[in-house]
Structure formats: C-alpha cells, structure tokens
C-alpha cells in the first residue's frame, strides 16, 4: 500500500485494485464446508469467499461469518439457538445446520466489473450488506477483490492527504 494515486468516487476499480493488498479467496461449489472453513481460516483478511463452478465462473458468495456460524452450529448449537427470537432467525439457523457444502450456504453472486467506479463499489457493498466483493471479467471469472474496509481506509487517507479530492 505504499504507492499513492488519486482516489475519488469516480476512479475505476481497475485503477484502485493495485492499491489493495487483500486478494480473492476462491472455493468450489461442491467443497465440504469444513474444508471451506479451513480455507477461510488460512486467509482471514478475505471476509467474503468466491464460490466457483467447474468452469471457474463465479456462482455465489460466502461471507466468512456464515461459515463461522455453521461451524459453531455443529459444535455448540445451543449458542446459536439462544439468539433465535424471530422466524427469520429460526429459518437461517435451520439452513445453516443442514448445510454440508459451499452450495448449501452461498449467497447469490454479486461482483464488480473493472470499469465500475469506487462509488459503485461502496453502493453495491452497502446494498448487499457485504464487507467485500470480487471483481470479475466478461466471463464471470474472478480477477480481483475489493475489501470494503481496506478501500474505505485508502479513500480516507486520500481525503486527509488532499482535502479537495
């Protein structure tokens, strides 16, 4: 992160990517969730895993928090049951404890294009309530990753450096 470039809401993602250190972490749709959890644990900075099909195309997203809850549900389900006070929470718990593979737990795919802007990235992540999003090419193959906190900190540093930016 030593290199400094102008960073504004209209800056394209392809120009920002090289400023970011956190890279994509990918798993396959049929991977066992415990293996997926180990992959997530090995690279804790990437908080959203990309789920790929056989042709390496992005078909889903897997927030690490969901994987954590699934693993906790296997070892201490009471801890999650204690938090269930709504129908929605009960349904989510049911889905998590029955999940066995990445496909069972993944969210629908959402990604940025290289020509999307920093503003688009902030908007997309806020809308989807995700802390990061992959960047994909025309064939939905993952080429990069944008972490919300890392991007926001970079943006903040840029603002502090050049208040008019």
């Amino acid at each position, binding site marked *: 992160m030593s290199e400094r470039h102008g960073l504004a809401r209209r800056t394209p993602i392809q120009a920002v990517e090289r400023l970011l250190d956190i890279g994509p972490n990918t798993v396959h749709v049929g991977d066992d969730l415990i293996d997926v959890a180990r992959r997530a644990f090995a690279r804790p900075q990437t908080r959203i895993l990309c789920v790929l099909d056989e042709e390496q195309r992005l078909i889903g997203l897997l927030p690490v928090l969901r994987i954590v809850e699934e693993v906790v*549900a296997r070892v201490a389900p*009471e*801890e999650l049951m*204690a938090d*269930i*006070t*709504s*129908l929605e929470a*009960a*349904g989510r718990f049911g889905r998590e404890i029955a999940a066995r593979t990445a496909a069972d737990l993944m969210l629908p795919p959402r990604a940025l294009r290289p020509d999307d802007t920093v503003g688009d990235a902030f908007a997309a992540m806020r809308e989807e309530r995700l802390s990061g999003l992959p960047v994909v090419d025309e064939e939905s193959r993952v080429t990069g990753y944008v972490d919300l906190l890392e991007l926001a900190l970079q943006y903040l540093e840029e603002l502090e450096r050049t208040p008019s930016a």
Partner: protein
Amino acid sequence: MGLDVWIAAALFALTYAAIASERLHKTVAALAGGVLMVALGILDQEEAFAAIDLNVIFLLLGMMVIANVTRRTGVFQWVAIRAVRLAGADPWRILVALSVITAIASAFLDNVTTVVLVGPITLYIAAALRVSPIPYLISEILASNIGGTATLIGDPPNILIGSAAGIDFATFAANMAPVAVVILVVYLVAARFLFRGEIRHQRTNRSVPMLDESGVITDPRLMRISIVVMIGTIAGFLAAGPLGWESATVALLGAATLFIVAREDPAEVLREVEWSTLLFFAGLFMLVEGVIHVGIIAALGDGLFQATGGDASITAIALLWVSGIASGIIDNIPYTATLIPIVEQLGVRGLDLEPLWWSLAIGASLGGNGTIIGASANVVIANLAQRAGHPITFVAFLRYGVSTLLLSLVIATAYVWLRYLL
C-alpha cells in the same frame, strides 16, 4: 333491497376475495374494506370504531408482549431441548415429544413464539439425523391447531368467540380442553400410521448429539421474572370470571407487570408485536359491522334457522362441520368474525347458544388443519420450512391435514352430541 345492502355485500365479498387470493396483504384488505364501509356511508365512523372489540385487541397485545419478553430468555428452547432429551434418538418418540410440546405451547402462546420454540430444535434434530424435517414440522402444525383449540387464548377464533359470548378463560378451558386432549391423544396414535412410511425410512444409525439446555438460557433473572409473570397471568385468567375482569385486563396487567419488574425497553419489545395482526382484527370488526348494520347477517341467521328447522342438534352439528371444512379453505379469523353475529341471531330466535358456541369454536380451530393455508400456525411453520430450505407443498400437506381434520371432527361431533345435545 336497498343500495346500501348491495354496497355492503359487495365490499364484504371483495374483501374476502382479496384475503383468500392473497392479492393484497390480509391486513390491508381488511382495513380497506372496513374503512370503505365508513367512506361509502354504510356506517358512520363512531359506529365503525365502536365495533372494534378492544377486549380482543388488548388481549392479543398483552399476550404478545409477555411472549416476546419471555422468548428472549431462551426458556422455551430449554423446555424443547429437555423434551427431546427425554425422547432419546428414536424418530417416533421425537415426533411425539415435539408434537406434545407444540400442542401445549399453542394453548397459551402465539404462533410465532411457538414456532421459535419448536422450530430450531426440530431442524437441528433433522440435520443431525440427516433426515427430512418435513414430517416433524407437519405434525407440529397439526398438533398446534389441536392444542390451540383447548383454551380461550390458544387460537384467534377462540378469543373472538370468548369475547363476543362473554365466556371466561376457566369456562372455555373446562369445555374445550377435554375434547382437545382426546383429539391429541387419538391423533398421536393415528400419526404412527400417518407418518409410518416417513418415520420408518428415517431410522438411521446416527444419534442426536447431546444438547446442553443450560446453554440456551440467555438471561436467568429475566427468565425467572417471565415465568412468574406468565404463571401469574394464567392464574389471573382462571380467576378473571369470579373477579369480573375481562381477559384483556389480565393480559395487560401481566404485560405491565413485566415491563415494570423486568425493566425491558418498551420500544424494543413493542417493535416485535404483530401490529399487522392487530390491525387485521380492527379492520375485520368494522367490515363485519357493515354487513350487520344493513341486515345481511340477520337474513343469513334467519335462512340458517329455516334450513335447520330450528333444531338445536342439527344446527350445532352442521355448524361444527361447516366451520371445520370452511376454516380449512378460508382464513378462520374472518370466518369466525362473520359467524359470531350469525350465531347470535340464532340465539335471538330461541336456540340454545351454548352448543353453538362450542361447535363454532371447535370447528374453526380444528378446521385450520385442513390445508396448509388453513390457519396462521400452518402459514408460520410453512414459512419457517421454506426459509430453512425444506418447503412443504400444498398437496404434500393435504393428505395429513384432511385425514387429521376428518378424524378430529368425528371425535368432536361425538363430544358435542354427548355433552351438550343429549
């Protein structure tokens, strides 16, 4: 017939159609129908608002507050885990344990609380055994409607009937609980055959990992307070008749006590109240008042009286079966709201009201078992199943629902006949 009769009938029919077709949210449909009765001059606002039975609204509100606070403590899940531990790993015994817990909970709690109580443990067990949770969830729906029949607060139709007929909690339980218990026992015996295929198929070598029920208690102090308030509220319901209190007074007293003693944030607790349900009732009361006001209900009562020849036995049994079948097809809340004034009309013509009230209450509550859309418990559990990735289809439910409904109505017919008509 005057124009007002046609307008009221059309509004009533359109509102029912909107509720049944789900083209509009039922609360929106009922409120719109009710307020249009005023806007189109069938009722004036004072008449419409006076028709809203505040005893029903505040009884529901008070019980929702008590249940919302109590379910945060984890005590309901504690009970469910204890019951399942007693059942061991045998799928059949688990089904019975979950069904009995659901039936008891449904007699005292609202549907969402009951589902939050039994839903997670059901899904957990099914996942641990690597089997489908659907048979268990269907059995819980059926048990919920049977259990809800037992008390005044068990099912919305009962609340409506109890309030309209001035029947207190103790009298309601003394008349309804015996038949509900008999039906539940017979249902559990029949369930062995109903779910035979699924349960036999589910026998596996897997066992349910032992759950630690103490892990679900989030706030022991609040739990103790909630349990005391809940027991006190039920005791209050039992004493309400002799004390001359309405049920809503008891429920609001319980809710107010809980707020004061537990010091929970009222804004947070009230956010979880099912306001849409309360407004649905308000709209229905206004809508039905409109058709009463123009004389449609009196005419229907007269027609029913003529059709049964004024025979109390035929009327009571017909009311039981028609209510049972109709409530499986249409929402049992608007159905009951409409039938209450019709039954009152039969009373005006000299029929003994007691067997009619019980027939309506039993039929409307049990009728919910007919289809997956027959009662709010069905919809809530089906919603949970859908969210958890195990949708229960209309057709899949029908086989179990219709069998259980017919069995229940036969038992209920014998009960009403022996207890009230002989």
